[in-house]
């Protein structure tokens, strides 16, 4: 497993894995193996799992902070662990109550039992349902220590069943978490199909669609509409300096769509004849803003000027719970200038002692503010940018925003 980890780090560092989907899938699989191999103590299984995942996640995120999908998956897994733990605790509480009710006939030996069990129930409820605060942290150790103690003070059978309960609960937690992570991986793999299903609702006959660069989501989306016998035209802007637009245009033309390749500078000229702009995203932030391939802010502004809907397609693994502070600088990656200028071209004029200096700027991403986006189409349906914060509450917990381990003294 260590080797797996190493390979993933190296790949992320060198940005060799292209595309958030592949990255997300690999990260999820890695975390699944981490979870399955983690030995869980009798108590605080959830906490142990969480800290283990956090340790690995921190390293993954540090390898490539700009690849936000990795951080998203780490946080999703953490949320899954917490949720599974919570659901098990509520099931256990229900079970305890049932057992308390059934034991009511035996009053004598179990006189203190219902009281204790009530206390135990309350304690269990507090520890899992309440958000962590100073008090819960202080209360945690004695109460959970009391539960096995009280259970062992009860009848042997109950004690045994309780401890069996605990260990089986631990195994059940792991099992449930791994199942949920499998579901997550499944969701990531099928996000294209689910988004593409919605294509027919948005593309009608004889439309003209504009896109920039290349995105697999967009390709599947447009081809799904084509399958349903809608005929439309596509303008693809090149997307310098990577020129992925050429690839997309070739693919679309091969599948039978009327495609025209234009330069990025011609976007404003052509957008007056375009009905819809459909693009993919690198990440969607908590405020509804989009981290997109460079050039898309320009396209979004042009679309706003001409009142053309700007539609962003994004799988749910791209939804990031962070708020973008100064995204052009902090969430951006500057690539090599050799993509713009050949190495030897400007060396002679740089040598002269005239004092001229040359900087070459080659950013990879652009930030599109939420007010320029008309619609997000995710695998859960279409949403407004103002709704994206609510989706975050579904997928992530507030504790996990900062994936940094606390210093060793408290853990």
């Amino acid at each position, binding site marked *: 497993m260590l080797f797996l980890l190493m390979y993933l780090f190296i790949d992320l560092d060198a940005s060799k894995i292209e595309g958030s989907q592949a990255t997300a899938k690999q990260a999820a699989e890695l975390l699944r193996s981490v979870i399955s191999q983690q030995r869980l103590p009798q108590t605080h299984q959830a906490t142990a799992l969480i800290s283990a995942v956090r340790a690995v996640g921190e390293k993954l995120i540090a390898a490539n902070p700009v690849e936000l999908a990795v951080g998203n998956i780490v946080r999703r897994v953490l949320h899954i662990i917490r949720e599974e733990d919570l659901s098990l605790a509520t099931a256990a509480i229900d079970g305890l109550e049932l057992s308390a009710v059934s034991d009511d006939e035996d009053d004598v030996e179990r006189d203190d039992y219902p009281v204790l069990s009530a206390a135990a129930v309350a304690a269990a409820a507090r520890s899992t349902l309440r958000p962590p605060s100073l008090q819960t942290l202080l209360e945690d150790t004695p109460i959970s220590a009391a539960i096995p103690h009280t259970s062992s003070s009860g009848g042997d059978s109950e004690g045994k069943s309780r401890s069996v309960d605990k260990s089986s609960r631990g195994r059940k937690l792991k099992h449930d978490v791994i199942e949920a992570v499998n579901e997550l991986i499944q969701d990531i793999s099928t996000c294209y199909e689910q988004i593409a299903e919605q294509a027919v609702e948005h593309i009608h006959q004889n439309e003209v669609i504009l896109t920039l660069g290349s995105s697999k989501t967009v390709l599947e989306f447009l081809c799904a509409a084509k399958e349903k016998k809608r005929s439309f035209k596509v303008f693809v802007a*090149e*997307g*310098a*300096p990577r*020129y992925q637009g*050429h*690839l997309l*245009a*070739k693919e*679309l*033309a*091969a599948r*039978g*769509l*009327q*495609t*025209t*390749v*234009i*330069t*990025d*500078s*011609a*976007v*404003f*000229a*052509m957008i*007056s*004849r375009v009905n819809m702009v459909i693009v993919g995203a690198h990440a969607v932030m908590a405020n509804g803003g989009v981290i997109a391939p*460079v*050039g898309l*802010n*320009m396209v979004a*502004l*042009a679309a706003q*000027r001409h009142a053309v809907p700007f539609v962003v397609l994004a799988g749910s693994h791209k939804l990031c719970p962070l708020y973008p502070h100064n995204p*052009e600088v902090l969430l*951006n990656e500057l690539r090599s*200038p050799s*993509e*713009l*200028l*050949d190495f030897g*071209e*400007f060396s002679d*004029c*740089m040598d*002269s002692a*005239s*004092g*001229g*200096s*040359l*900087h*070459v*700027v*080659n*950013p990879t991403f*652009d*930030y599109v503010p939420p007010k320029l986006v008309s619609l997000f189409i995710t695998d859960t349906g279409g949403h407004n940018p103002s709704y994206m914060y609510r989706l975050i509450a579904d997928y992530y917990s507030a504790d996990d925003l900062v994936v940094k381990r606390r210093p060793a003294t408290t853990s």
Partner: protein
Amino acid sequence: MAQIHIFLHAFILFLSLFFVVTNEKKHETVTEVCPNTPSVSPPLKSKTTKAERRALQEAQRAAKAASKANGNSAVAESGKAALAKSKNQSSLKKDGPPVTSEVTIDKKSGNRPPEKERKKDAPPQRMQFDDQNRVGKAKRRALVNQTEAKNRVELFRHLPQYDHGSQLPNLESKLFQLDSVHPAVFKVGLRYMAGDISGVNARCTEMLRALQEAIIDYSTPPEKVLIRELTAKISSYISFINECRPLSISMGNAIRFVKRRIAKLPLSHTDVEAKTALCSDIDRFINEKIIIADKVIVGHASTKVRDGDVLLTYGLSCVVEMILLSAHDVGKKFRVVVVDSRPKLESQALLNRLIAKGLSCTYTHINAVSYIMHEVTKVFLGASAVLSNGTVLSRVGTACIAMVAHAFSVPVLICCEAFKFHERVLLDSICCNEIGDPGALATVPGRMDINYLENWTNEENLQLLNLMYDVTPSDYVSVIVTDHGMIPPTSVPVIVREYGQEHYLI
């Protein structure tokens, strides 16, 4: 009796319609029924408005009143043939500069007051390339046979989309064979086609110099009037240049100036005097409207550059380059951001020159404009033409830059000479544009790995579109710096109206 009546009526009809044809067709040509020999390509005819035709008629009738009686019977019969031919040619419009105005000025001395003519003086229609009839006729008269590009973009069917560069070797071999085209003009046409000259100022200057040489070498054939013959010759040269590469809107202004000067030549001048007058006029035009105008613009715009500024420029505009260099020479401390785009990558030449002179520059491509715009304090852009509704026609991508600058509240200054102002109006970049070589999009120079579009011509669903110009709306432009001063975009039609007519008549 009745026959003579009919003949008279017919004759008057034919005569009036015959004089509709522009003044190249002289009285004698009516007797020859066969069309002109192809070696001298027939001159351009464009639609003349009703007012001009009437003015023409009246003046010429007055002049020819004496000889009317002689040409009666001959006119009646051959008038029919001439009529059919003249109708064809008068309805043929070519993508050329508006040539109506020299007719109006010519006949101004007639009865019509100038204001009425100016009102009806709408710009003539340009050639629309989806009209099969006209395209066919233009092709038959063309000297340069361009082949149509495969995979044409449907949206731009009204613009010529040709296989670029295919005619260059063909024409080069014909250099000494074509008598109809003066060698200087031929050379300029070839250089246009090869893409050696780019930028309106350079193209205009080269074209005017070539016309100067052609005028110097010109000699009037016997029994012909210099004015008409020279105008015909100039028109033929212009149509040749147009076939090599479509004229830009502001070059039309220069050509219109030349034709006006020719038309204004007093008839008493001898050939030599006329030619020297014309050459000095052209010299004056180039000097005043381009060279000195540039100096004035640089003077105005340099006052806008302050210490600590970060100036953004796009494309290769000679005026903007002059502004930056002069501000640097004066000693101001500023940075320059040079934005470039495909497929021409022309800003790299500008970058070279700026760095050689010692400016500190940042280079980036047009997609990264949103990234860099928060650092920028002013944007300086050049223009190919400025239209009457305040929109600016210039290199494709300028509109994107102006839009992003507007979104970041950065002022946009357009620097262009006043001869580029035109009375046309345009709302978007589709109706009037130029389509460049689509093959230039398929390959990226210097990046061998980007070869996805190698066989793009084989894909029937795939088209490549290489637009050359785009139109920037007037609300993105803060100020236009011209040799008349710094004006807001809303004042452009005022300049066109007030200064357009008079300055050309000096």
